[in-house]
């Protein structure tokens, strides 16, 4: 009986020592996974997920604090890719964080704008130019469509306009064949 205890204790000490050594030797600094998650997120910095920006959300996913279905701008496709990367199950977009909308850009009605600079302060990607008491305007290619500028505007002169389909960004459609019943002869 004593020998059994001794043998198990000896094994435990040796293995514990080895593991302790490995834990020190192979310590992981930072979390490279956050980078990978962040690169999938759409970088609108809109905060619809409940985190202040895309990177904090990526951090939360990596820590296991957040679900992968909280990002409306990323859409179903983004969730699918996150699920692929993390080996989790795909989930439909959670409704409480918003719905997937077509990509839009903010447009300022320049006749109404009073030049208060509130939208400039709200824009996370510096896509609005203007100065105090001067008209503001949106640099469309830089706008991520996060809608953060819509709320602060005191005169409601900012509208979200969906990006129109042009010859250049038109996509070939998935080939679909309608199966029609053969006409009776």
């Amino acid at each position, binding site marked *: 009986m004593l020998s059994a205890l001794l043998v198990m204790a000896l094994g435990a000490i040796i293995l514990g020592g080895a593991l302790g050594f490995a834990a020190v030797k192979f310590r992981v600094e930072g979390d490279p996974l956050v980078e990978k998650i962040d*690169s999938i997120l*759409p970088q609108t910095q809109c905060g619809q997920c409940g985190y202040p920006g895309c990177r904090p959300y990526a951090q939360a996913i990596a820590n296991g604090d957040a679900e992968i279905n909280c990002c409306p701008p990323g859409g179903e496709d983004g969730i699918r890719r996150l699920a692929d990367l993390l080996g989790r199950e795909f989930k439909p977009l959670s409704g409480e964080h918003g719905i997937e909308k077509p990509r839009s850009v903010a447009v300022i009605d320049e006749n109404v704008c009073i030049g208060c600079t509130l939208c400039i302060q709200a824009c996370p990607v*510096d896509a609005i130019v203007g100065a105090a008491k001067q008209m503001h305007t949106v640099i469309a290619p830089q706008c991520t469509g996060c809608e953060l500028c819509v709320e602060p505007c005191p005169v409601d002169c900012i509208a979200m306009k969906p990006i129109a389909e042009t010859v250049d960004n*038109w996509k070939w459609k998935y080939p679909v064949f309608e199966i029609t019943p053969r006409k009776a002869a």
Partner: protein
Amino acid sequence: MSRRLFSFHGGVKPAYHKAPSILQPIQAAPLPAEFVIPLHQSIGGIPRPTVTVGERVRKGQMVGAPDGNVTSAVHASTSGLVKAMEMRRMPHTSGLSALCVILEPDGRDEWIDHAPVPWREMSPNAVRDILRDSGVVGLGGAVFPSYLKVNPGKRGHLDTLVINGAECEPFITCDDMQMRERPEGVVRGAGILRDLTQAARVLVGIEDNKPEAIAAMKAAIERTGEERLEVVAVPTRYPAGGAKQLIRVLTGIEVPHGKRSTDYGVQCFNTGTAHAIHDALELGRPMISRIVTVAGNVERPGNFEVRFGTPMRELVALCGPKPDTDRLIMGGPMMGFRMPGDEVPVVKATNCVLVGSPAMFPPPPPEMPCIRCGECVKACPADLTPFEMYWFSRAKLFGKAQEYHLFDCIECGCCAYVCPSRIPLVDYYRFAKSEIWAREQEKAAADQARDYYEFRLAREEREKQEKAAKLAAKAAETKAKLAGQATADGAAAAEDAHKALIASAMGKAKTQQDAVRPRNTDSLTPEQQAQVAEAEARRTANTEAKSDA
């Protein structure tokens, strides 16, 4: 002399239907009631308009100036009045509109002043600029701006310049007719390209089902006396006219995935492009027209010299479309695109307007499951495995489809042609390609947004720190002042303190001034410093002169 020819893998031999459209010589298409000239006719950036509504323009006047690195100019097709600038339906499968210059001809057809370009005396870059401003793009179908291709490559010279006169697609005969009737222009253009690209030899590849074109080109080479130029008949097999396929047949070089033909000292131009380059440099004429085949369901098929912007309806009307006509196809039956309507204009990419009817193109039979028979692999001229790409494109597994080199697919349609299950394979590839492109663009936009956001965060952090530092400095200053006031007595001391305050303020202003010194004067090259010194000297001289006066 017979040259050793090589072969490409796969390919098909469809019925060619070329005979009806070569019965008549090339005719000039008459002026239409109005020209619809799309600004965006080539690959690359959209040209910016250079005319205003109500302006009178002359034939060959630039209406869209090149904008960006990859771009090409667009010109007025005749003299007349710019009636409008508006969105019109494009000759594109989507049926979407784009900005067009609407030109009403005045019937005088006056050219702008133009003269031959002394390109031999000019630097290569200047010649390229002229080609860009002349709007010369590849007329084989890809409409890639030619000035970017007139480039000897990294090695400084080409081994072989291939002039592509194979024209393998059924129905289309525009290059054939051009080589028969205007071989001198093609040969001289090829000579110009040879000199511009420093090519050691020029091979003109023509499919052997065009003996008249081969004879005409050979005779033209004799007449013009162009050197290092050789006409080579290549076996007729679709798609021998694909650039990579023709290069393979003529030189035996197989351009691998991810490489360019210039890496192997080979470049390829279409015969029509060679002719257009000749016109642009030897005659000084910008590209305003091209030869277009009208074939299919018409009474009198033929080839026409058509100015860009001519509505297809008016062109087709010249050939007498049969009553059951229900569609127009731009390009041939293998690679062409169905047009959204018959009012769309002829553009630089229009090599053929194929008139179709339900009898000619019956509705596609239902798609059957892929049985992995491998017929498509045998037919693929790009050595791909079409059924694998199909499998993954269909399941929207784009990453996997790319692993099978989806982007090396030239969309020639051979796989769909031979498929016993009648699967429209090319449709799936086009779908997958445009999805992948859209994703890549989204990814690039997201990366850019991340940069902007991180920059903004950094800036906010910096501003906060600067503000805090400023506040701390101010607090310390008031503290020191108070302490000074407490200890010092008399007016003298107060004045000293006052002086010290002024001095410190001046010092601060000085440091601030230093801090805001423009950054662009840092780390200059010696020449730039010399320039700056020169400018300074000039400025002082100026102020002196002014004060003297």
